[in-house]
């Protein structure tokens, strides 16, 4: 904290992207108290810290503050400062030795504010410093939550992600972060789609089955039966004469 840049005058708030993750099914899983608190729930802020050192020893310093808003619609925004001259140089040095740029956020719950401070520990992620430099500080930070709104992981990637060894000459490119921030809640895995399948089967059945069911056996094959009967009658009327002829001969 002591090494927070002196250039606080340059402090600027970078607009962030909000992604809203609705989490419907979660609402009735023991979060009734949280729902009740929604009215006076105005969000809270947690620090986002980063660390980049030539010797790869973690020394985390403040990068910005995450504004988290839990409840029915989870949202997140980030306010962060620019990199100081000193930091820029360090970052370039770290990139030169293929060091890592790490970030961390404390473990918090978005829904249950009572336990928010009790959880200890941090969630950590990293990206290669060179790719951060080469992408001109454009990174994508993703926060992952679990079903009950706890932050479980953080990830950082840069776009583009590759290290091609191109020199970044322009100092201005390394001053401000161009951060895309998202928060992702777990998706619900699908259930077997029985209803749709049965519906489809019914439709197919109707298509095929209807004309057949309406006609009865006799209605369908009357001509065959009739033809058969005529044939039988014809053959039976013809046979006695033939038989009679035989008898006469013997």
């Amino acid at each position, binding site marked *: 904290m002591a090494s927070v840049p002196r250039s606080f005058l340059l402090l600027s708030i970078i607009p962030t992207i909000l992604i809203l993750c609705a989490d419907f*099914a979660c609402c009735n*899983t023991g979060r009734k108290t949280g729902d009740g608190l929604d009215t006076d729930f105005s969000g809270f802020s947690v620090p986002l810290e980063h660390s980049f050192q030539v010797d790869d020893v973690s020394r985390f310093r403040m990068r910005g503050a995450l504004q988290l808003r839990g409840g029915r619609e989870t949202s997140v925004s980030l306010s962060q400062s620019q990199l100081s001259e000193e930091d820029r140089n360090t970052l370039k040095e770290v990139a030169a030795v293929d060091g890592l740029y790490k970030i961390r956020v404390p473990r918090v719950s978005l829904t249950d504010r009572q336990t928010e401070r009790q959880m200890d520990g*941090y969630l*950590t992620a*990293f*990206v290669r410093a060179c790719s951060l430099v080469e992408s001109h500080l454009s990174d994508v930070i993703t926060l992952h939550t679990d079903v009950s709104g706890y932050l479980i992981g953080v*990830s950082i990637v840069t*776009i583009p992600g590759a290290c091609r060894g191109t020199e970044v000459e322009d100092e201005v490119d390394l001053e401000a972060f161009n951060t895309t921030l998202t928060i992702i809640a777990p998706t619900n895995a*699908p259930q*077997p789609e029985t209803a749709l399948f049965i519906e489809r089967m019914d439709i197919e059945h109707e298509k095929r089955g209807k004309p057949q069911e309406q006609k009865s056996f006799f209605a369908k094959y009357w001509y065959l039966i009739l033809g058969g009967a005529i044939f039988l009658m014809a053959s039976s009327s013809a046979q006695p004469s033939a038989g009679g002829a035989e008898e006469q001969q013997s």
Partner: protein
Amino acid sequence: MYPPSLVVTFTKKSSVKMAKLTSLFVISLSFFCISEAVFEDQVGKFDWRQQYVGKTLFAHFESNTQSSKKMFVATDKNIFASFNSRTGDLLWRHVDKTGPEGSIDILLLHGQDALMVVGDGRLLRSWDTNIGGLNWEAVLDTGSFQAACFVAIQDTVKLVAVLKKAALSLHYLSNGHQKWVENLPDSDAVQYQAVYSGGEEEVYVLGVVPNSHLTIIAYSLEDGEIIKQRSVEASWLSSVESSCVVVGQGVLMCVDPATLALYTLPIQAEETPEFSQILLQSLDLEVSPGFQPVLVSSQPHPARSPLSEFFLQLGPDHHVLLQLNADGYTIAPLRDFQPAFLVSFATTGKKTVAAVMTPKNETACAINLFSVDSGRRLLDTTVLFPLELNGGKPHALYVHAFLKKDDSVGYRVLVQTQDHALTFIQQPGRVVWTREEALADVVTMEMVDLPLTGTQAELEGEFGKKAAIQDGLFPMVLKRLSSQVTLLQAWLAHLWKLFYEARKPRGQVKNEVTIETLSRDEFNLQKMMVMVTASGKLFGIDSKSGSILWKHYLENVQPNAAFKLIVQRTTAHFPHPPQCTLLIKDKDTGLATLHVFNPIFGRKSHIALPALPRPILQSLLLPVIDQDYAKVLLLVDDQYKVTAFPSTKNVLQQLQEMASSIFFYLIRSDQGNLSGFRLRKDLSTERIWEVVLPTEVQKIVAVKGKRPNEHVHSQGRVMGDRSVLYKYLNPNLLAVVTESTDTHPERAFVGVFLVDGVTGRIIHEAVQRKARGPVHFVHSENWVVYEYWNTKSRRNEFSVLELFEGTELYNSTVFSSLDRPHLPQVLQQTYIFPSPITTMEATLTEKGITSRHLLVGLPSGAILSLPKMFLDPRRPEVVTEHSREENLIPYAPEMPIRTEWFINYNQTVARVKGIYTAPSGLESTCLVVAYGLDIYQTRVYPSKQFDVLKDDYDYVLISSVLFALFFATMISKRLAQVKLLNRAWR
């Protein structure tokens, strides 16, 4: 050639017409169905099954005649089985429930009836020993089981007495009906531990108040009335079970290790009896320091009182045969056996003998019979029991004694060793059979390629770089010629053998596999199965025949140890021998040891092992190889320090160079913590990412990566519109499965997380609501298939997740977890599966061209080969032109189970625990081993045998057609020439 039928698994080859008809039926019914089955004449050709029972707890022989063939065992795997004592084959086997519910408390044998108490006194069962059928089963009252014995009325055994913690009950042997049940008096204070009947009108129950007194209660056989109840002062006695036996005419004999004395007490005495003490010193006997002396007695017939002779074990290898004199309180020593590992009584007719096992030399033990009355050794009764070099020590001795024609006593003996092996020995020391019952509990296994034959190896050696440098040009030519000559010789010998064998009837050709003749076959179908069992015994099994080629027992393995088997060097690096490493980890302390061995011969390698003083958290096999072509194994200890094995200079140098690209992960499921580390140049590590799943919500139940030897042939899937959907093939991807801590059916869920093992990035996070474990899953290629229990619909369901990069590849040349900024597209579909499952694995082939099948082990013992095609999240709900083009099966919520998909037809594998798959040299063929209580090995062909000619391929027809065509061309050419000539003349 002959398509298999729909329902029956066996199809007679002769019934071609029928098969054709059914095939039409099959094709018309299911257009996409891939059917496969075994022909009747193929049964047992490519597959084998071995059945096991587990560690023997009780063993009995049928009757005391020389010709009897049956023996009965009850085991720790809750199995009651009968062996043919001539061959060691199973006659029948009953597999009960696992766990304490099915545990066998006692097995008693009388005549044709085998009595068994099951599940800590829950059930009393009687079996017919002839056919293994259940005579009757009686449910016993609650209460934990203590003891049971037969009770005779007027010299015939009619009843069985079962002693529970608080009650004694008598049951009729004929039908299991209860004669009477009586509550034991004062059962809270007194621990009743033994029941005794000597053929009189009473049955005695012995109980003890530890370090206070002994209680003897006599019950009337007729109505269960207490006839008498005695209490005897015994402040030295803590347990009747462990320190007392009944000998002679109802005399209780106890041993006290504290005072080093024997105590005798007549049970049936009328007046209040008292223990009389006999100091061991007075008998010139001395107990080994720290050893708890043990008494062994024998009651040959339940209608008569026990023998007055008994054994007293004074040390681990010291036994004495003692005799209780007729007065009931003096003891005469008959014979001192030192050293003697094991002793056992055996009775035949009126004669009772004692069998004693004594060590003879380093490779054998001798077993002798002694007359019980005198303690004299019987002549010509020595049997040698061979001790294997890497086998277990003898643990128990079961003697089958019988009277020979000349009225002398003959015997056979069953020896159980510490490694759970059973060896049956006949006079004069011939091993009749051996059963390796450790194989009933296989923990992990690997399949290793067999080495090349001598000639092949020589050829390999010729082109080795060392040889090329040493020799000049001329010796190289000579060498080449000589190796060609040896090859020719080998080929001729092979031809001769083929010719010789062709004249013999097919059944008689028997290729005896020995460790010397092992060599790789043409298509690498025969491999060495290295199996690690829970008892710590390792086996090398030939995959073709199932014969055990080597075994190695590791002593000092804790019963709860975890094993990991790693193939560090395959057979491909001649002349370096293949090398396997077994990591044995004690679950309590976390301390690990390594056992390095040659997987072909089972011999332990004499390689310097690294010292591992700290608990090991993780082991990982790197693709880095040392100068001897062994892959490097990294072991991470609890201080996150890394030990490399082998740790030569070469390896350490390579590790330093590669350190920044070696990442690994650790998972602490108790804290819900997943963390990633990177190796530093000094072999220390740094933590670079951390993901925490709060344990209050969900707990991690399993984590699986992909198999390192898996190949994916096709990078994408061609869709109906001829565009390509590229697969997301991340080799570092981990599938993490969690279960909710809340078990309420409405709120329970199963979580599936896909995490990149290098960056810790959560690639996908899905929650299956209203679901519960046990979750079985397979993670391979670009998909994860998992199975769970749906708590709402009360059924098993299968879900498949597939990951795609989309229609464009981000970086098509190389995959790096550090450079894949875009998340993949995830497709998922769920199906109903009409059966619970016990294990699941995917087939694996050499190049990954063959389509994949899932091998699903069902509780019924069947192994289902389920085409992955049916588990495809792109199965359309409405059939379109494109989906038809792609051969996608229309979505149906229920997954079919077709009987012809059972790869093990009627060879069920009891209690399947795991399925192991290995590629063979043929792309179409995958080798499968299913293990559990039984071991089953077979081959599967997921896309049928597209690279193999059929067995009934008509060589004669093809060659005759070829020849005919050849001659026809010759003749027609000649004719054409003649015709041309004639025309020219005209």
